[in-house]
């Protein structure tokens, strides 16, 4: 994420040397790979997730809580939450990097993206674990 200018003042490394091997971000293509990995995971999970949602339609809280707390349903939803939040976090970062050009605004947006993604993931996971423990 650092620009050549911000490093160039102190570093004696050449621009080419900085981007060799894993590139300027030092994480290489890991985001590209994880974006596809989580996408394929969701292709596999989407049918079970649709079945779960259909099972929950028209039920009251007690009925919904019982279904959501059963192990198989909880595991399917947990897998889907991890895959989807990871996928959308990477996707939103790409969108931010494409359209937000001010360095400070971009950093703030990427931070907000991370905060949002982790908060939504943890809240959803907490809710499912609470339903699973039956308290």
């Amino acid at each position: 994420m650092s620009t050549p200018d911000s490093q160039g003042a102190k570093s004696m490394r050449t621009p080419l040397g900085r981007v060799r091997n894993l590139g300027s971000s030092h994480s290489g293509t890991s985001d590209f790979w994880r974006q596809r990995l989580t996408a394929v995971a969701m292709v596999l999970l989407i049918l079970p997730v649709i079945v779960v949602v259909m099972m929950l339609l028209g039920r009251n809280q007690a009925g919904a809580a019982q279904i959501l707390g059963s192990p198989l349903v909880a595991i399917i939803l947990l897998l889907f939450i991890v895959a989807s939040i990871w996928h959308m976090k990477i996707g939103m970062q790409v969108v931010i990097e494409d359209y937000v050009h001010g360095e400070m605004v971009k950093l703030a947006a990427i931070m907000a993206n991370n905060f949002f993604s982790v908060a939504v993931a943890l809240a959803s996971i907490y809710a499912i674990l609470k339903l699973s423990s039956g308290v």
Partner: protein
Amino acid sequence: MTARIERPLSPHLQTYRFTLTMAMSIIHRITGVALYFGTLLLAWWLIAAASGPAAYSNVQAFTSSFIGRLIVFGYTWALMHHLLSGVRHFVWDLGYGFKANERETLTWGALIGGISLTVLLWIAAYAIGGGR
């Protein structure tokens, strides 16, 4: 510092003839961003189910309202469209489907498939849930 050199820029979007693949490219991104914020709904629903009957009935009141139902319908379409459009991108990532006819078939397939799956899911939802 060296002076900034005015180099020629590549032409922007309005120079090119409008194509379906072009529109689908930006729709893929828009549906992705919509789904990003749509996860708030899913999180709200799960938290409400974990909180109790009062919180859950708030969610149900929202999803059975006109605007709520419209948003959930839109969410369904965004999800189905992004899914099929994503599979299309995955095929391209693997190096297939770049011939003109293959490219068009994949793109039309994702577009029509996304709409069809959305309608089918909502018919199934009304049949199972009785519109509640």
